[in-house]
């Protein structure tokens, strides 16, 4: 099945995002699932639809052979599957990620921060500096998009005047 209608592709990626959000809920990562559902399935889909309205609705047929991209995707997928074989079982308590700082956060949050959601305590307090950086990244991304795409109201007015003159 080869899909060239980009509207369908955007919708499918939104559906995929929502399904992975459901997967995160199954894996007890509710905060991540929440973000995935809101950003991945919601905003990204709308922004990609907006991009599509600015560009094209149809993908151009490729001019070169698809054998190489298919091979690269296949090898990458095989390597990832091979890698998962070495992963510890899901939720195992003795994995390195659970042994490092996580017990410390779980032990110290009730006495030091006192908020029930440890994810929020880590995100906003223990790792507050990181979150400040993330917020700055979002801010910079917004500025960049405005610089690239924004049409000032003056220019829009000029355009309208031009049309009237014509």
């Amino acid at each position: 099945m080869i899909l060239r209608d980009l509207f369908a592709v955007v919708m499918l990626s939104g559906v995929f995002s929502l399904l992975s959000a459901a997967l995160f809920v199954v894996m007890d990562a509710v905060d991540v699932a929440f973000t995935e559902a809101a950003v991945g399935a919601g905003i990204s889909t709308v922004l990609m639809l907006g991009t599509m309205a600015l560009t094209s609705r149809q993908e151009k047929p490729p001019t070169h052979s698809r054998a190489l991209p298919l091979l690269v995707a296949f090898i990458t997928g095989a390597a990832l599957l091979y890698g998962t074989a070495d992963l510890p079982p899901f939720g195992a308590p003795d994995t390195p990620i659970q042994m490092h700082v996580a017990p410390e956060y779980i032990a110290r949050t009730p006495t030091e921060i006192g908020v029930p959601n440890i994810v929020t305590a880590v995100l906003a307090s223990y790792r507050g500096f990181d979150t400040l950086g993330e917020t700055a990244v979002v801010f910079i991304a917004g500025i960049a998009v405005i610089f690239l795409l924004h049409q000032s109201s003056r220019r829009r007015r000029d355009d309208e005047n031009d049309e009237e003159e014509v």
Partner: protein
Amino acid sequence: MDHHYILRIISKMLIPPIMLYAFYVQFHGDFGPGGGFQAGVIFAVAFILYALVYGVEKLRKVLPPLIVRAGMALGVLLYAGTGAYSLFKGYNFLDYAALAEPGHAKAGQHLGILLVEAGVGLTVASVMIAIFLAFASRAPQIKDTDW
């Protein structure tokens, strides 16, 4: 979209609950899943839904782009300002214990998390609306027959 009565009325009914839900996610983030990032996106979605159904020009009237751009900067400023305040009080940067009386570190942490999450939410919501406005203002109006 003037003749899509069902779509217009249903989205008009949905927008206030979406906003209320965004505030719930924002302020309940300490106790359950959620926080500034998710709440900001949900809050922005309410405005984007409005623009999708009623048109971008109406959104510009409801929410002037100048306010959106100010909100982008104010959120980061609120976050960094919380950190700077704790510096001036003689604590480490972003040490929320500075926000309460000495010995009441937990109350300071609560207030600090509330403030920085509010900053995150404000910036994320404003940036999402600004990006949507930047895209949608350039796109030609989509006609019903195009879909």
